[in-house]
């Protein structure tokens, strides 16, 4: 019995360690899971960049499936993902909204004029307080919100066609059919 263990225990320990380390290689510590999944959107009230005097609140997110993109003009990755957002808006499968995180108003307007505006409303979060309430820790971040105003998914980092096709769209289709 002891002889058996003597040879097999080190191997077993090695294999166990290998499994954990292999798993560790695939985890990205910069992807922090959102605590807000399956929770309602935090209350917010931000001035809308495009419509002076109007505000953008969580109330507008009710009724239809939507994406809320947190971006800023100083964020280069946001520029990179912008064509994807324009494509998504053209597809019109979901409503697109945005929160402009710690930005300059005129710069934001110029940026949108230059690259195009896929958003129905853009909340201007000058202090970053709303972003903190949403658990945002780095732009861009994109929240998928169902018609009841419940956050269903959060993507951290720039959106890609891949992410849209293989991650967001399947969830949206499931929400549509009532599977989740």
């Amino acid at each position, binding site marked *: 019995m*002891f002889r058996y*263990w003597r040879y097999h225990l080190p191997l077993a320990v090695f294999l166990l360690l290998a499994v954990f380390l292999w798993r560790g290689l695939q985890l990205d510590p*910069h992807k922090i899971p959102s*605590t807000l999944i399956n929770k309602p959107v935090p209350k917010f009230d931000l001035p809308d960049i495009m419509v002076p005097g109007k505000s953008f609140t969580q109330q507008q997110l009710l009724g239809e499936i939507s994406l809320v993109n947190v971006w800023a003009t100083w964020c280069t990755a946001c520029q990179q993902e912008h064509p994807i957002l324009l494509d998504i808006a053209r597809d019109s499968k979901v409503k697109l909204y945005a929160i402009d995180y710690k930005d300059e108003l005129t710069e934001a307007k110029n940026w949108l004029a230059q690259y195009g505006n896929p958003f129905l409303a853009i909340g201007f979060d000058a*202090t970053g307080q709303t972003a*903190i309430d949403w658990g945002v820790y780095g732009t861009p971040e994109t929240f998928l919100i169902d018609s009841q105003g419940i956050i269903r998914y959060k993507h951290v980092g720039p959106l890609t066609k891949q992410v849209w096709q293989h991650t967001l769209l399947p969830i949206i289709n499931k929400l549509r059919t009532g599977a989740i």
Partner: protein
Amino acid sequence: MKVYFLKLMSAMLLLYSLTAEAATEQYPFVNSTQRAAFKQLTQELRCLVCQNQDLADSNAPLAVDLRAEIYQMIQRGESKQSVINYMTARYGDFILYKTPLKSTTYVLWLSPFATLLIAFSVLIIIVRSRYQRMTGDS
């Protein structure tokens, strides 16, 4: 040599304490309890942008904002626990350097003890078998 080393160490410590002070400088507190609470909280909470730094140490814009938030909460007289609750509600347990003991972290907390137990068991088995062999031989 030894004296030189000690001098170097104390100089480094002094430097470290100076930098640690730098972050709290801009926040005046009415009493030392609040200052201590602020210091403790910013050292126990992780900066989410540069993850190996605590909030006290980091100059990332988000860390600056979260420090300001903690300061305001303390100024309002809120407890340390309510600050921690506020942070974990938004950023999850990841923001805590001290991992809480709960069902999802049992393996993390208990595996060192389990490993120790296994190691001791193996040791006992080995010692016993050797002892038996020795007494059997003699």
